């Protein structure tokens, strides 16, 4: 410790009694495994999103009132554009660093969603959601919903032609809810499409959702610290009762700092090389126009796949209707999240290990057959729906009718999850049987309570 640091620390310690807590924090043990870093990547993405987002918010004009663009972008000079879109053209073409920070913001958003999803899969496949971590698992699922809501509001703030279609589908989905659909539209859009969506989404995107996310994220991390980290079995240590790994200082500090710098560096490199978030191709949102190149952002592909693949119906009842858009655009995506919330309890019922004790040990993806079957089946289901979004692109590329591609996916979305889920289940069962035959006393490493 340098003399200056020691002086500051001693001064504060004399008043705040920091020595004990600081030691506890710095001594905190972090088990080592690459998959434990996925959540950290999400955390660093969020930090980068906040920093770049502050810069972008200084220039964004949260209004769709038309204004004439007079900046340096030749494509748009003299044209009347929605205010929000015009301010983004201005930010990208007339502000030094504007395009770079926009691209980093977009890249960090992609990485945020991707790493959060990967982190979720890690939690599911290693059984880290089991008692005593059900609460934190549910906080994590809620965080994922917030991440997707942030991504959706953010992509639409651009107010380009893509946002136009994305907003229309959000509008139709909200409106499809029986009985209260139109009231929901009024609550979110404040009127008929596009309504007051720009200021509403701006408030959600820069204020309400980030505040909720930051609060829940803090709670998420506090609970991880309090309950200690899960870990894979360690030779010679009863890892159910002790955490084994590197202390925060210096090892984990070095590892996390390096990771944060790498995440920032890679995002900056991608921003220089990849022109994502450039909008010149799509042009501004024009009421009454949609682009054929339009598609959802990739994290919502599965919803688009669902409302494209599944068959049409509108059922009318006295006073309300139940529609295809409601069932597949609202119930199905929400149902998937419902399943995530319910999963710790589902497995508790189905799995054949002692779920009433605290489980601190990670298991391998195929250690619990029921889990392997369900998680692989659901992941396949979402993946098929995601890929199905590209049906029009595939049909054009393969020179087959789009109807044929659709029917292939319709079969696939039912058959593939069953097939993959069953295969994972069967393999896991065989593996467990083999282990039992080899070591009759051991059931499953993570379920053993030391005597």
């Amino acid at each position, binding site marked *: 410790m340098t003399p200056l640091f020691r002086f500051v620390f001693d001064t504060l310690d004399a008043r705040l009694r920091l020595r004990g807590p600081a030691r506890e924090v*710095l001594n905190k043990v972090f088990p080592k495994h690459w998959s434990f870093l996925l959540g950290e990547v999400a955390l660093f993405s969020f930090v980068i999103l906040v920093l770049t987002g502050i810069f972008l918010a200084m220039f964004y004009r949260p209004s769709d009132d038309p204004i004439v663009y007079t900046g340096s972008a030749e494509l748009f000079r003299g044209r009347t554009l929605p205010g929000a879109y015009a301010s983004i053209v201005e930010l990208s073409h007339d*502000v*030094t660093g504007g395009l770079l920070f926009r691209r980093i913001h977009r890249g960090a958003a992609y990485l945020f969603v991707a790493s959060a999803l990967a982190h979720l899969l890690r939690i599911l496949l290693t059984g880290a959601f089991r008692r005593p971590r059900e609460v934190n698992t549910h906080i994590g699922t809620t965080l994922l919903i917030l991440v997707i809501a942030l991504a959706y509001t953010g992509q639409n703030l651009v107010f380009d032609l893509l946002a136009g279609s994305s907003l229309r589908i959000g509008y139709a989905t909200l409106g499809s809810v029986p009985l209260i659909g139109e009231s929901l539209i009024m609550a979110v859009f404040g009127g008929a499409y596009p309504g007051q969506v720009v200021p509403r989404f701006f408030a959600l995107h820069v204020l309400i959702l980030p505040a909720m996310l930051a609060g829940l994220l803090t709670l998420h991390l506090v609970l991880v610290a309090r309950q*200690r980290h899960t870990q894979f079995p360690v030779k010679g240590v009863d890892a159910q*009762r002790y*955490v084994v790994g590197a202390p925060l200082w210096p*090892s984990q500090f*070095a590892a996390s700092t*390096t990771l944060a710098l790498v995440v*920032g560096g890679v995002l900056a490199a991608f921003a220089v090389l990849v022109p994502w978030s450039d909008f010149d191709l799509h042009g501004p949102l024009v009421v009454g126009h949609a682009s054929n190149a339009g598609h959802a952002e990739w994290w919502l592909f599965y919803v688009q796949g669902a409302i494209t693949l599944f068959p049409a119906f509108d059922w009318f009842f006295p006073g309300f209707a139940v529609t295809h858009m409601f069932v597949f655009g609202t119930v199905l995506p929400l149902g998937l999240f419902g399943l995530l919330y319910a999963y710790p309890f589902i497995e508790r019922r189905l799995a054949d290990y002692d779920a009433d004790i605290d489980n601190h040990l990670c298991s391998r993806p195929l250690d619990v057959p029921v889990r392997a079957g369900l998680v692989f089946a659901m992941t396949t289901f979402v993946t098929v729906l995601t890929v199905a979004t590209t049906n029009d692109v595939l049909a054009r590329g393969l020179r087959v009718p789009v109807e044929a591609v659709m029917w292939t996916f319709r079969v696939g979305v039912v058959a593939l999850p069953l097939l993959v889920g069953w295969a994972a289940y069967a393999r896991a069962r065989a593996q467990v049987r083999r282990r039992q035959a080899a070591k009759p006393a051991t059931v499953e490493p993570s379920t053993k309570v030391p005597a």
Partner: protein
Amino acid sequence: MTDEQGKDPHKGLDVIGTHVPPPSEVNDTIVMGASILAGICAIVFAVGLTLGGPMIVYGSALAVGLLALAVAVRRYFAAAYPDIEGVEPREIPDAEPTRQEDAEPVAEVEPVHRRTVVQRMLIGAAALFGLSLATPVASLGPAPGDTLRRTEWEEGRRLVTPDGEPLRPDDVAVGGISTVWPEDAVEVESSAVILVRLSTGAPRPPTNLDWVVDDDLVAYSKVCTHAGCPVGLFRERDDALFCPCHQSTFDAARGAVPTFGPTARALPQLPMGVDDDGFLVALGDFTEQVGPTFG
């Protein structure tokens, strides 16, 4: 096992393995090289962003700099500090644990190989990089130049009403004031002018009498020299202009010098005359700074 050694499981972390890295010249060179690269990138990023250079330059500098800093941090810690493996009990203590203050805390692990030069270069590079990340502030607005000190007034520009109508001297009655704007620049706040027909007779110095029309019609900037409020109130009895915000009072008959209140400067007088068609025109921009004094 920790328990079997009879240690209090709540005392804190127990070290079960320590690997001390051997000193390495090569590693020091890597850390120093990466630190220098990161420092250079920080400067390129800051300068590129401030001067508005091409994105490929400052964007690449940001990317390379962050990655170089990552290498420096990684290599520095790998060589300077022991690699410790510790265990910590999982139980969440119910009460505050009783910690022995004299116990050797891992938190105070010192580097095994301390090379001051290497450490300082790394810290220097990190600090430089942190500073360079503040330069996007420069993008928030263009360089001001004289844009905030200039107004829309220029030679031959007519004085117009808020509706854009040009004014003749007769349009302002004795003891009357009216707010006027430069033609084609109505409601550009810094150019607001208040036109006064004095009720106490001819203006006296320091009023510039060359800019007075009809011997009693003068024009002053309407923006208060104290804090920038529009000076909107007029007291006919003594030709006093009065600012509603902080009660600064100006004598319109004597070059609008302050007579009361918190402001120190007179309201700048607009060089004013009459053109060939008989309309009021400016003879040029203000010769003093309009509005509050900028630092």
